[in-house]
Every structure is written in structure tokens, then in C-alpha cells.
């Protein structure tokens, strides 16, 4: 009988670059920057790393395919390196690979590194790309904001809410994330904004305006993991362990069948349920101290609060406006600024979320430190609401 991943693997070092428009950096510089911090943090020799996982989404225009971008940038001594890609869940998937390897006993110390160099396209937003030879024949050439805007459209229809209330709740989410990002020296966007600015910003994909969209950023983040036994052996005292790592990809139901009404994220619900089970969480609202969710767009965060069980179905607008997810709320969300303001270098984002959990749990988050958190959740949503992969992870202090 499988027992899950809870408390089998410890994170002993993490690193994260400054996120943003890193015009002076390519993927190689970003990889080295994140890795150097993590190695110093773990206080180990680089030769201790036995296996590595690289997370990278847009290989076409940044680092290229395969293990090579990581192996070559770090001049790794020909250790096994596997590149993983699962859209916006890519960074978390790299971590899952490393975590599973040490849990399986295949190695003692493994590295997970996610990187993305997005700002070489010459235009704003994510790069244009083919969706595959069949899908290109029929699927709209949807952008990410356009795909997620439909979440707002269907949510509003499902819950019969006033579009103005929804827009205001979305604005509240962005105002909160900007305020959080302002306290984070590594964040891409560090200016605060007002609710009026958010509401009146230029329209990108109705009803999402400019401030409903996250930053498109360059960056890298990484984690060094080992087994709990090995961590103790190596002399670590307080450390963060993985409590759950779950992944739920769509099987086509949302895209092809009316069983889904477009107003929620089916896979997020499934992944969350599994993760809570794996972590032994009964009441997430009470047990979780903080979350880093996939706030690619303000409306995504709003809907995800319901899908993670952090508020009642249809209750997100009120919960958001009541400040339940603000930094001083019941369950703070995006305490580091989130995708919205920390930024969203796709392959790095899942690891960036884990990085914030790690800092918060160890009490090293500086100006934005929460009062003694012990359990946090990270969530990624790769793809579009109608077809995606969702990952939910729980990290906590080892008890």
C-alpha cells in the first residue's frame, strides 16, 4: 500500500533569481544565479548533487530542448539530468521529479531547477506558438488572457453576480498582490496600485484589464532536496518537508462536454482533494497558514480560492473583498506578490512558489514575514481553463 510522499523528503537549500525583464541575462545566467544561491543556502559541495531535473517550457526561444541547458550551464559532471515540461506546472514538476528520486532512494541529493527566458520575443505577453498540427486546424488562436477571461464570463453567469462586483473583487486581488510585491526585493513589479487604477486599466481580453494580468518575466528558481534521514545525517535541524505533491491533468471533459460549465477549474479541485488527503489535511481553511496559487490572472486566483476549499462555492467575491486572503487575512495568498507581481517565468514559477513557502516557514522572509506559519500550499495551473494540468503541493515545517 503506497503511503504517499508526506515527510519523506526535505528541502535543504533553495535559490531564486531576481524576476523581471532581465534584458542583460540569458537562460544560462539565470540558471547560474539561482543555483549559486541554493548551493550556498544548502551549504554543500556541488559534487554532492547526484541527479537533476530541469523545468523549461518555451524551449523554442530560450534555452533549447533536453537536459543540456542545465547540464552545460552548470558544467555538471555528467550526472543524470531530465528536462520536464508541463506548461505552467513545469517548475513544480521538476521538483516532483527530484523529490520522487530521493524518496525512491535512487539518490541522496537531487536538484530541481526551473528557468524561463521570455523577454526575447520583441513583444508583450506570451510568445505566439503552434498548438499542434491538428489543433491548429480548428482551435482559436487564443491568448492566455482570452482563455482565462472566459472563466470570469462563465463564473459571472453561473453565480449571477453583478459584473461590477466581480471586477471589483478582481481589482482587490491585484491591489493586494501589488502591495505584497512591493515588499519583495526580488519581485518583478514593485509598485503599489489602487483599485481605481485596476478597474480602469486598458482592456486586454474582456473583462480582464492590464492589471488583471500577471507579469511576463525572466527568471529561475531551484531547490536541493534529500531524504529526511539524510537531512538529519547531514546535520540539518529545522527543515521544510514535502507534505503532498499532486497533479491532475484534464482528460478532455471540460473541452468537449457540457458536464463542465466553465465557471471553475475541475482539475484544481481534483488535485487539491488528493493533496489534502496525502498531507492529512481535513480543513484547509483552518490548517493552511498561507497559499501561493496560480494567479496568472486575477480571476484565476478568485476562482481557485473556491476550488481549493478556502471559501464557499460562489463566495469568493465576498471572501476576497472581506480581505480573507490579504496578508493580514485568514489565509494570506501570494504573500510574495504572486505571479502577478513576483512575475511568471513559466518554468520557474512552481519553484518560486516553493521558495516563498520555504522562506516563510523558516522565518527568513524579511519585511513580508508572516507570524510563524507551519503549513503552506502551492498551486499551478498549466494551460487554459478548458484544458489544463493542475498541480497542488503542500510544504510544511518538519515536526
Amino acid at each position: 500500500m503506497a503511503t504517499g510522499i508526506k515527510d519523506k523528503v526535505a528541502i535543504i537549500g533553495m535559490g531564486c533569481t531576481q524576476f523581471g525583464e532581465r534584458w542583460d541575462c540569458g537562460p544560462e545566467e539565470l540558471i547560474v544565479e539561482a543555483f549559486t544561491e541554493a548551493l550556498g543556502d544548502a551549504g554543500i559541495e556541488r559534487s554532492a548533487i547526484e541527479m537533476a531535473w530541469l523545468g523549461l517550457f518555451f524551449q523554442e526561444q530560450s534555452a533549447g530542448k533536453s537536459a543540456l541547458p542545465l547540464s552545460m550551464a552548470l558544467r555538471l559532471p555528467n550526472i543524470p539530468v531530465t528536462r520536464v515540461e508541463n506548461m505552467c506546472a513545469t517548475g513544480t514538476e521538476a521538483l516532483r521529479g527530484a523529490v520522487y528520486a530521493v524518496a525512491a532512494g535512487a539518490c541522496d541529493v537531487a536538484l530541481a531547477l526551473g528557468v524561463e527566458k521570455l523577454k526575447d520575443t520583441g513583444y508583450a505577453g506570451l510568445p505566439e506558438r503552434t498548438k499542434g498540427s491538428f489543433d491548429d486546424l480548428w482551435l482559436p488562436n487564443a491568448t492566455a488572457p482570452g482563455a482565462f477571461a472566459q472563466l470570469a464570463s462563465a463564473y459571472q453567469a453561473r453565480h449571477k453576480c453583478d459584473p461590477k462586483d466581480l471586477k471589483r473583487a478582481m481589482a482587490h486581488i491585484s491591489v493586494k498582490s501589488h502591495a505584497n510585491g512591493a515588499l519583495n526585493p526580488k519581485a518583478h513589479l514593485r509598485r503599489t496600485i489602487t483599485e481605481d487604477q485596476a478597474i480602469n486599466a486598458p482592456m486586454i481580453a474582456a473583462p480582464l484589464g492590464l492589471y488583471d494580468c500577471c507579469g511576463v518575466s525572466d527568471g529561475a528558481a531551484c531547490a536541493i532536496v534529500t531524504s529526511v534521514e539524510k537531512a538529519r545525517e547531514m546535520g540539518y535541524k529545522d527543515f521544510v518537508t514535502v507534505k503532498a505533491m499532486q497533479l491532475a491533468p484534464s482528460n478532455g471533459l471540460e473541452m468537449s462536454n457540457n458536464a463542465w460549465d466553465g465557471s471553475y477549474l475541475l482539475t484544481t479541485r481534483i488535485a487539491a482533494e488528493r493533496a489534502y488527503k496525502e498531507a492529512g489535511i481535513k480543513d484547509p481553511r483552518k490548517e493552511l497558514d498561507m497559499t501561493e496559487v496560480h494567479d496568472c490572472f486575477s480571476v484565476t486566483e478568485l476562482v481557485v480560492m473556491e476550488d481549493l476549499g478556502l471559501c464557499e462555492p460562489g463566495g469568493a467575491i465576498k471572501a476576497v473583498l472581506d480581505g480573507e486572503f490579504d496578508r493580514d487575512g485568514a489565509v494570506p495568498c501570494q504573500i510574495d506578490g504572486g505571479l502577478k507581481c513576483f512575475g511568471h517565468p513559466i518554468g520557474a514559477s512552481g519553484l518560486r512558489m516553493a521558495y516563498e513557502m520555504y522562506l516563510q516557514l523558516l522565518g527568513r522572509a524579511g519585511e513580508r514575514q508572516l507570524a510563524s506559519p507551519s503549513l503552506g500550499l502551492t498551486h499551478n495551473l498549466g494551460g487554459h481553463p478548458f484544458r489544463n494540468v493542475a498541480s497542488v503541493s503542500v510544504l510544511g515545517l518538519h515536526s
Partner: protein
Amino acid sequence: MTYGILSFGAYVPHLRLARSAILDAVGWAVPGVRGLAAGERAVANWDEDSITLAVEAARDCLAGVDGPVGQVSLASTTLPFADRSNSGVVADALDLDHEVLTEDLAGSRRAATSALARAARGHGHDTTLLVAADTRETRPGSSQEMLYGHGAAALLIGEGKPVAEFLAAASVHEDMVDQYRATDTDFDYALEERWVREEGYLKIVPDVVEQAAAGAGIQVGDIDHVVLHGSTGVARALAKPLGIDPKRFADPLTANCGDTGVPHPLLMLASVLDNAGPDQYVLVIGFGQGADAIILRTTPALALVRAGRGAGRALAQRRPLANYTQFLSLRNQISIDFGLRSERDNRTALSAYYRKRRDITAMRGGRCRECNTLQFPRALVCVKCGAAESQTPESLAALTGRVKSFTEDWLAYTPSPPYIYGNVEFPDGANVMLEFTDFGAGQIKVGDPVRLVFRVKDYDTKRHFRRYFWKPAPLPVDGD
């Protein structure tokens, strides 16, 4: 069983450009077009071409018609492909059997009337869909820009209960180059209208009409409706020598459509059939390097077939296009800077297309034999019940959908911003994310019903290819 025209249909693209907007834009250079600047002309949207127009006219013609179509004849001088069966694409879009004989008729404004004359003279065994469509582009400031419009019409010809029977037809060929368009050029080159009228229409047409009337065993003066494309001046001039009351000349649709080219005689005929009574004689004239004359007699079956279709209905569907610059851009005559996103490579993997050609062109999804769930795309495993290889192909093209969610996207590239797309629900469980067309910003809400239309999905400007798919569009409004 009688041979004749079994059904008819029409399609006029919904965009209508006021000719005054053309005058406002080009009058400084060519004040002479002022005399033409009344009414409005039909304009094909950026995602419409002669194939998509033909498909819409054919759908209108075939709606509610029983029995197989054996042949598709597509007539046009503006077919998008010089070598690729354009009529084959139309046949696939109509989800017709692959054994249908398809032919492309081109090279003359008479391409459709000559085919009609051929049909009138004798017939094969197959029920034939004769569909004509044109999207003639015009040089800014030209008379043609004022006079032309885009449109399509279709006739179903064969054995059955015809709405009109063929009585006779006659044709002549005279190489009078009144206007022409070389294969490698975009625009028509037209000669003086008065020369064309006096040496062309007045000398060539009466003889052909006489021949046809003689063949039909009627007097020309007995004809109830004359379909004659060209300027109203031509109709006035011909009334006297033909001995027909000018009132019997059908409306050339100048005020609300413009001269559509090859389809125009069929479009005017569809308009006549919309309003004609039984046992009336209809003369259809085609002109251009000669002439065709076809004489038909309507039947009582006309009253049964025409409800909710035809030219009146087509012309009632309109969306004003106020901006002349937008008109030029939609027709690809000026190059607006749509930014780096418009540089996207739209290469089609044609082997993938070939595997899925019916799924794409006829929008065939699958219906699960186990749980009856309809789904697009069709898959090996049912999305609902998980049964394997359980799906029977079924087209969704004729279904009415309901908007589940949508957005107006100002970031994505489209020749007609905003790019509108969303999830659309269909009966029996199906949901498909689709690009919308013929909607502007603020014109859709969740829950609205939509119909599907066959359109250009995107253009591959590098390889001069275009691909087609189905898009939700507004439901038609009631016509005349």
C-alpha cells in the same frame, strides 16, 4: 417526376458599405463617382471568400431538401485556388458523399448562366447543385468599387417537383472584350459603358432571347420576369427592342448589394423566385463575350419551397461597415500594422489535414453509440463514458449552439479586432471552443444562441494557403 430547378438559395455577406463612405474617401480624386454614390454594397468579411460564400448559398438551397446531390458545379471568376478543387472543398463542407462529381467553372462572367443553359438543354442522371460565388476586388476610386458587391447563389437542378421548369435555352459567343481581368492581376479592366450597351447588349442579347423564346414556343412579350445583370440603363435600353414592359425587369439589387459577378443572374433569379407566382415565364440572361438566355416557367411547388430562404432573407442580414479604411483592410488592400503577433506562421500540416479533412471541413464530431454523447473532436475513447471506438461520425455544422463563455481579446491578432472566441454548448453534451465571426465588441452575452458558418480560419501568407473551419455567428433575422 419532372426535371427543373428543385430549390434555390442565396447568400449575401452581412457587411454593407454605404457608397457615400466610398465617395467621402475617394471623391477628392474621382469626383465623377458621385453619381454612383447612393445605397450600399455588400462586402465579404476578412474570413470570407468565394468558397465560403458558395457554401452559405448552398446550405440555404439545400435546407430541408431530401435526396442525394450527385454533382457540385461551382462557378466563379474569383476562386481562391487555381489548382485545388474548390468545388471539392464546398462538397466536403456540405458533408456530401465523396462520390459526388465536382467541377469548377470559371473564366467568364457567364460561367453560371452557361451551366444553367447546359442544364436546360438536357440533363444527366445526377441531381446537380449549381452554385456561384464571387468576391471581385476593386481598385480604390474605380466605378467597380461603387458598382460591385460580393455574393453567392445556388440552384438545385434535377428530377423531382421543380419550382421552375426549363423551357428552352440559347447561347452565343462573341469576343467583345467589354471588360477583362488577366489571370495574374487583381482588378477588372472595363471599357466605356455606352459602347458596351450599344454594341454589346443591344446587338447581341435580342437575337439570343428570340432564339430561346422560339425554342420555348412563346412570344418574348409573354415573359413575366427578366433577369438581366448590368446597369439599369441596359435594362431600360433593352426593354423596347425586346418588346417587354420595363417593369418586368427584375431588381438588379443595386441599392442594397451591388453587382456580384458570376452569381448575379442566379442571385437575381433567386430574388425573382422569392416573389413570383406559379406558371410565370422567367427569362435569365447572362452577358459577357456573348450571351446566354434561359427561359423557365414557375410551378405551384414554388410556394412550398421558398419559406425562410432566398435572396430576401439573405439581403435582410446586414451589419453596417462605416469605415472605408476598414473595408480596404478587410479586403487586404491596405496593410495595417497589426504588430509582431500578426507574424505568426500559419503553416498547415497537410497530411494531418488529410487525416482529419472531414472532421474539419464538415465539422464532423462523433456520437457515442454507448451513451449518445456528441463530442468534437471525435476521439477513439468517449469523453463521457470511456467506451472505446464507439463513435459514429456526425456533423455539428447545422446545430444551434449556446454561448457558455466568451471573451473579446484585444491582444491576439485578428484582421478584425477584437478576436472573439469562447466555449459553445451544443445539444447532447457537446462543447467546443470556437472563434466567433460577424460579431462586434459588445454584441455577445453568455447564453446567446449561435449558428455555425464555414469561414477561412487563417491565411498562410508565406505559402499562399488558407485553411477553413466553422465559426459561431449570429442567428439570422427574419427577412421579407
